[in-house]
């Protein structure tokens, strides 16, 4: 078990190395004029000096080595265009909590709504609640997110008179962004929950319990729900870590000063240090989420052993 986790971690480190190296090289393909806002007025010497200051004239492996060396010292570099000469870690420390707070509230909301929705749908499988729920899930999956975000913003701000833009001091302005962020997850949780519940309800131990005369309620809450919840636990760390990344649409629509639009912003401004830091964070979020998900699943269900070939969902 420990050996398996160490192996996974080693693989994660290698993967992160490769990903950052690729993104690092891709960033060096950026046009030179993007690095300087007033490129047209600069002389060739000034451009050369500027590039040397940024360390862009060295060979690529040297630059890459320097990046990894700083990384091991916990230094992600300094931003040079987005917020000149501010350490990247400082900018992130300001941005992450905003996305994290909204994201966590949205996650709580989607768990509170999504899981019971899935349970109710499986309880009344094939009947009206199931059909309504399925319609709701299909609608959320099929309609592009931007459309329902816009609808929520329009309806919320016009008919319900809720504040249209986010402000840190006014909790009522958080309602609409949280609603937007949670809808997709509600659909996802409800869908998986319903599927696992239906799988469990068809299993032999449920038939035995029914034959014994255990009440339907007891079967549902004491046996089926517990077993069906195990695979959901696997999804939770990824969902939680993803809240750090934020949503580009939601944050720009409601002008939330979070992580959402940051990546696009720094890519467009060619702030290499920021882009590398963000890519590193995003990739580690993905890898760590999967690892933690598997780990929590073994905690929740001791029958599952890590390290062996796992069956796909």
């Amino acid at each position, binding site marked *: 078990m420990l050996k398996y986790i160490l192996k996974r971690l080693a693989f994660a480190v290698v993967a992160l190395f490769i990903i950052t190296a690729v993104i690092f090289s891709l960033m060096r393909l950026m046009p030179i004029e993007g690095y300087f806002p007033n490129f047209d007025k600069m002389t060739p010497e000034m451009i050369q000096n500027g590039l040397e200051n940024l360390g862009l004239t060295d060979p690529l492996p040297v630059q890459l080595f320097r990046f990894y060396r700083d990384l091991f010292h916990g230094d992600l570099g300094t931003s040079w265009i987005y917020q000149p000469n501010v350490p990247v870690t400082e900018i992130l420390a300001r941005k992450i909590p905003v996305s994290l707070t909204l994201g966590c509230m949205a996650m709580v909301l989607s768990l509170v709504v999504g899981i019971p929705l899935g349970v109710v749908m499986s309880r009344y499988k094939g009947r009206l609640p199931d059909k309504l729920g399925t319609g709701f899930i299909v609608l959320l999956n099929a309609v*592009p997110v*931007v459309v329902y975000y816009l609808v929520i913003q329009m309806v919320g701000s016009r008919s319900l008179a809720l504040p249209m833009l986010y402000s840190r001091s006014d909790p009522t302005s958080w309602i609409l962004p949280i609603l937007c962020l949670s809808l997709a997850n509600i659909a996802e949780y409800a869908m998986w929950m319903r599927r696992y519940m239906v799988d469990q309800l068809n299993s032999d131990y449920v038939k035995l319990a029914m034959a014994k005369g255990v009440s339907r309620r007891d079967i549902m809450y004491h046996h089926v729900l517990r077993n069906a919840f195990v695979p959901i636990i696997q999804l939770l760390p990824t969902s939680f870590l993803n809240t750090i990344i934020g949503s580009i*649409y939601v944050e*720009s629509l409601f002008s939330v000063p979070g992580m959402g639009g940051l990546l696009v912003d720094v890519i467009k401004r060619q702030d290499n240090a920021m882009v590398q830091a963000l890519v590193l964070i995003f990739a580690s979020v*993905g890898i760590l989420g999967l690892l933690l998900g598997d780990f929590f699943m073994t905690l929740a269900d001791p029958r599952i052993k890590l390290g062996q070939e796992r069956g796909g969902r």
Partner: protein
Amino acid sequence: MPQIGKRKLDKLATSLEEDLAKKAKGLTQAEIDALDPQLFTLADYDAAAAERTGYSNYSYWRSTLRIFWRNKVARLLIILLGLMLLFTFIQPFLPDQKDPTEIFYNEETGMPLSNKQPGEVEGFILGTNNLGQDLWSRTWYATRTSLFIGFVVALSECIIGITVGVLWGYVRRLDQFLTSAYNIVDNVPRTIILILISYILRPSMSTIILSMCLVGWLKMARYVRNQVVIIRDRDYNLASRCLGSSTPRIVYRNLLPYLVSIIMLRAALAVPTAITDEVFLTYIGLGLPVYTPSLGTLIIAGKALMTTPSLSYQLIIPCVALSFVTVCFYVIGNAFADAADPKNHVS
């Protein structure tokens, strides 16, 4: 628990009684005489009859279409989508259609006919935008652009995804390498790749198509690979190989039919994904330029006017078009994938 209805119970009871009655009476002498005596003689060995094989008129595609057609919602949506596709492509050739990029002016005042409500001015069915362009023809032009992007991306996703997926699943030596490569690439969020490629290559129609093609085939390859691994080692494939089938024949005749369901689903979902990705890229400023009408550019233009309630029709119209296309493809794709699954053909 099989549910037994009252009618079925009655039938069970009566049929039992009838059978018992038959057994008690037996056959009368006249009935026995009427039987053909040939039925009770030994048959000769007939080589032709022994070679005769059974024949089933089962056809994979006919069953698939039959099951698909049974789904009422999907049937309705595919008819509507077909009509919409047809209209999208014949719309510019219809009489009285306006140029989507032409700016119209009021003949008397010389002012641009901007922000006219749907039907406010004669000839402008969906009104005009803030520059004075005809929203009706712009919407159809935009749908055409977006559908074009969607179809090109879906096609390339099929070609690359299926090729890589089959190789990945079928060639054992590639499996280890491709799986670890996939595990690494899969950890980079697709938006990062999408944004980086579109930015480095400068935003344009061909760039965004290229960037979507580069990220899209991964999922398709993964699904195809998983399915191939499952059926690769089935006995009938071994038998087929022993009978001398070549590898391409095994792939085409034995493997691909099992993949139709998953491929159709991925391909049908690739179209709306590409269309919404175009909207996303345009939204963050890395998509199509403003002067090319696409659903993305129309929605962005409409979003800028969202604060004025009287002008929200400019946002709602492209949003409705976008949602209609994506919902259609989603529902049809899922219905077709269900119908294409051979397990659902037994009925």
